């Protein structure tokens, strides 16, 4: 049976991992390749690298990073951040990335999803959607939640599926960083209304939160950063817990 995925997310700036990495036993905690190897060995099912470099120039280091990760890591990984053209994606996939994640570039020019899906197949096109619930309405936001759009989460999600997204990475801005659990109600609605896998993001604090994202939120994968980076949750423990909860995970 297909298992639920546990997906650590690494924020990358100028080729280095950022956001309070607390791995004392790593030689270089800021080295994304070493961290990725650590997660792969500890049972992560896939990895996401999110490049938050401010400039185009510095993003070029990302290509090198992708090559190094592909060389060392034997599980699939997704790369996102600042990707806006077919050419960008071509380079990343050729270097060994399995999937790419696009966000604001898809909102600004939705045809990009069709173009990527036609050229590379929908299985490698992840559309990331950041949304904030305002007066009961889930509104799509850009720039890490700073800029509101006119799009509604569920209509936008259906549109990206129709245009050829292979997967949706949904981050609830209301839950992100709170460690109070995932946005299970919205997740569950996405999962029921769409026919492509949904990755839950934002709010992971405890093992129970992951369980709820899969059971109540019906998510196919759950992504988290700080709970893994700060070693609050170890992936082998998490998987044992989920397995006891009756959730299928890879052992």
């Amino acid at each position, binding site marked *: 049976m*297909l*298992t639920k995925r546990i997906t650590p997310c690494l924020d990358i700036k100028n080729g280095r991992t950022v956001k309070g990495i607390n791995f004392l036993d790593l030689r270089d905690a800021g080295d994304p390749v070493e961290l990725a190897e650590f997660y792969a060995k500890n049972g992560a099912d*896939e990895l996401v690298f999110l490049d938050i470099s401010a400039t185009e120039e510095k993003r070029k280091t990302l290509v090198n990073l992708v090559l190094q990760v*592909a060389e060392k890591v034997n599980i*699939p990984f997704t790369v996102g951040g600042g990707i806006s053209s077919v050419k960008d994606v071509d380079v990343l*996939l*050729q270097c060994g990335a399995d999937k790419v994640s696009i966000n604001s570039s898809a909102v600004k020019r939705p045809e990009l999803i069709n173009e990527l899906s036609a050229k590379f197949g929908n299985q490698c096109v992840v559309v990331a959607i950041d949304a904030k619930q305002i007066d009961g309405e889930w509104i799509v936001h850009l720039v890490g939640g700073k800029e509101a759009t006119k799009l509604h989460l569920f209509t936008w999600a259906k549109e990206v599926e129709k245009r050829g997204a*292979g997967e949706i990475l949904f981050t609830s801005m209301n839950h992100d960083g709170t460690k109070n659990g995932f946005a299970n109600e919205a997740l569950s609605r996405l999962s029921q209304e769409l026919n492509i896998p949904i990755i839950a993001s934002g709010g992971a604090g405890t093992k129970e939160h992951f369980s709820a994202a899969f059971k109540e939120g019906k998510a*196919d994968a759950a992504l988290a950063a700080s709970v893994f980076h700060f070693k609050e949750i170890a992936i082998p423990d998490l998987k044992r817990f989920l397995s006891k909860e009756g959730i299928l995970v890879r052992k």
Partner: protein
Amino acid sequence: MKIVIIDYGAGNIQSIKFALQRLDFEATLTANAEEIRQADKVIFPGVGEASSAMKKLKSTGLDQLIPLLTQPVLGICLGMQLMCLHTEEGNTTGLKIFNTIIKRFSNQVKVPQIGWNQISELESNLFNEIAENEFMYLVHSFYAESCPEMIAQTHYELDYASALRKNNFYGVQFHPEKSSKAGEKILDNFLKLEGRT
């Protein structure tokens, strides 16, 4: 040992090259018929859409060459699907090596299937030291119908063939190059297969 990866513009070759490197093997990417014929092992990769991939094979004559190869050949993902009789994707006729057809999962399940699923009913040297129900990474919307050439089975919506074998031809739906240690072991097993037919 000379290992070639068939070059017909089908993405994500780099991951296969790196996986082989981790096993201390080097592979050459080539579309040259003579080089492919003379290699000890041939890997036939594939990511993307079936009808355009088949067009590329035809334009270079690789569609004629591949079925005549006599050394061990491993088709991966779309590569495996193209080795079958026919695929529903783009209503494409295959290379007719494996006697089965490729169909699309229904909308009763999420499509594509993305993630780790189990392989069972393992029946080949390809799976030496691989445990029954081992997890492999899969990402696909189309599947091979069960058939006598099946050497591994996976369940998603229904039981389907996740690996096939006929004589020197092997095909796997999953990505051994992305399936952790167990995947690397399968690649290693493939590279250890001996002889020509």
